[in-house]
């Protein structure tokens, strides 16, 4: 597969602020890449650099085999959904949607048809003649979204395009976007804070922190083998629990720093007394069955989301786990928790890098 977008050694400064640090990323043609990371990590900046709205301070940006560092945005043939929408306030929804088509010289009737189609997908059909200031937040976001998908560009850049939509609409839009992406064979870069979105839509997930790419790979790979504590904690909701521990003298077990002195057998080659962090995802923690080994913890909070229940323990560090039924646990009650050693992730306490077999 050819590489559609290729970034090598890209840096970007805002004045003195180093917003992108040595970014290397290659996105194959037709891929759907999700870009995730904490707020302010540089996702929008990266997207804007791809679009040509920010000039990158150093490094190379190659799109479809051509170096694009200085190419004006319109020649890059990308469609972008802006995080802040950037709707044209002096145009109606319909005009906003068809703007790019009109520039290209598409006929009026044809543009109108395209607008109607897209509006049907995004549920804006009744609003085509409104001005942006007469729309609700979610409606504006849908206009921004529609404006991008009405085009058939080389690549789509989405900057949190669904953040203001309700769950049902979001599920619907997710499907539509992915379908469109597949139909056009376009390349998409998709910034999102929604774990489910990232995991279900993307072929490839890129995790950033403070302008650096921390890890990238297929969604489940990141989920199952996070390269470091940050990635492990960032992917998955509720987040992974981290428990400090220490390798035993014999180097074959980890003693967890938790009441009840739980220990885990490990399969790693670690020196004795090495300090580690043990990560365990909430869904892998369960209440021990009668007589099973485990550690006894008091309960600090029980939250019902409807389908599942999040339970938080009153320990240091606190442990969160998920129950798939309505539970009758009470705050203050002490329960015994356990988890399977094969579900555990081990990180170096100092470097916070994953410890494990080479892969």
């Amino acid at each position: 597969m050819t590489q559609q977008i290729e970034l090598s050694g890209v840096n970007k400064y805002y004045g003195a602020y180093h917003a992108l640090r040595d970014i290397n990323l290659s996105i194959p043609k037709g891929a759907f890449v999700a870009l995730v990371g904490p707020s302010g990590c540089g996702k929008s900046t990266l997207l804007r650099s791809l679009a040509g709205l920010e000039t990158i301070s150093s490094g190379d940006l190659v799109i479809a085999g051509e170096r694009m560092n200085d190419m004006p945005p319109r020649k890059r043939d990308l469609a972008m959904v802006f995080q802040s929408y950037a709707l044209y306030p002096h145009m109606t929804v319909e005009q906003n949607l068809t703007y790019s088509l009109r520039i290209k010289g598409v006929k009026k009737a044809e543009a109108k048809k395209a607008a109607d189609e897209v509006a049907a997908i995004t549920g804006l059909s009744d609003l085509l003649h409104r001005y942006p200031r007469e729309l609700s937040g979610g409606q504006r976001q849908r206009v921004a979204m529609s404006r991008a998908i009405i085009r058939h560009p080389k690549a789509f850049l989405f900057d949190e395009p669904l953040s203001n939509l309700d769950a049902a609409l979001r599920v619907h839009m997710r499907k539509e976007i992915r379908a469109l992406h597949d139909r056009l064979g376009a390349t998409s870069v998709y910034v999102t804070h929604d774990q489910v979105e990232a995991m279900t839509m993307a072929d490839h997930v890129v995790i950033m922190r403070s302008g650096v790419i921390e890890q990238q790979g297929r969604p489940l790979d990141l989920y199952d083998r996070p390269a470091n504590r940050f990635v492990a904690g960032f992917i998955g909701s509720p987040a992974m629990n981290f428990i400090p521990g220490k390798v035993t003298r014999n180097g074959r077990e980890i003693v967890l720093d938790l009441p009840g002195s739980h220990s885990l057998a490990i399969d790693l080659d670690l020196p004795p007394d090495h300090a580690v962090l043990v990560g365990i995802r909430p869904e892998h923690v369960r209440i021990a069955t009668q007589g099973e080994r485990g550690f006894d913890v008091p309960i600090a909070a029980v939250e019902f989301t409807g389908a599942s229940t999040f339970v938080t323990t009153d320990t240091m560090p606190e442990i969160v786990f998920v129950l798939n039924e309505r539970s009758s646990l009470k705050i203050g009650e002490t329960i015994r928790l356990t988890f399977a050693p094969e579900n555990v992730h081990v990180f170096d306490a100092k470097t916070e890098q994953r410890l494990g077999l080479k892969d």
Partner: protein
Amino acid sequence: MSETARNRLMLAIALIMAAIYLFPLYWMYVTSLKSGSEMFANPPSFWPSSAQWQTFAFVWESRNMSRYLWNSTVIAFGSVALIAVLGTGCAYVLARYRNVWVDVGLFLILMLQVLPASLMVTPIFVGFTQVGLLDYPRLAVILAIAAKSMPFFMVLVRATFMAVPMELEEAALVDGNSRVGAFFNIVLPLARNGILVSAILIFMQAFGEFVYSKSMIQDVSLQPASVGLNSFMGPNTSEWNNIMAYATMYVTPILAIFVLLQRRIVSGLTSGALK
């Protein structure tokens, strides 16, 4: 207080303020209808004893006003066109960036405006003579007015461009527009209020321009109305009613047009239209 009561009160206050402010205009109107030295009556008479409507027809005919007004219009449109074409783009660039060159540019623009027309006219006259521009006197005046008023336009229009979010232009670029296209389709319409108001102000200024026209346009048939007005306004004039009639015919149409236009400009498409 209810909404309507408040509105009525505001309207009343506005009318009083307008009455005070418009007094000179009113005075122009009544004087044009007065006769002889009723002007100097003491105490002043606020209403003409017998309105002399024929003054208007007389002045229109005898001063050949249609020709004067035509020349004024040509000069005003020419100047506004030139200024708008050159000034808008420049103002846009000066609003778009924030660096030391912009500072220098703004500084120069203001500095270039320092001299009053009465002092500028000599060097410009000398220069235009040398390049032969005085053979096209109206064009010469248009150029001179443009140079005089463009900084004014730029500074004002720049301020309106500052209110247009950069992001909208970016969106247009990503939508496949060139810089030129984004400028015309997005930035310009959004800054339209300020540009139009500034252009109208320029138009009015050019419509009344006097110093350059007086010196550079020697052929009566090409002179604008301001020079025509001046030509019967020497130090020893007693035709104040005629002069005011002239001025009335000169001013009223533009004022009317402006009132209509600005209504749409300043109150239309605003109130948080951006973002």
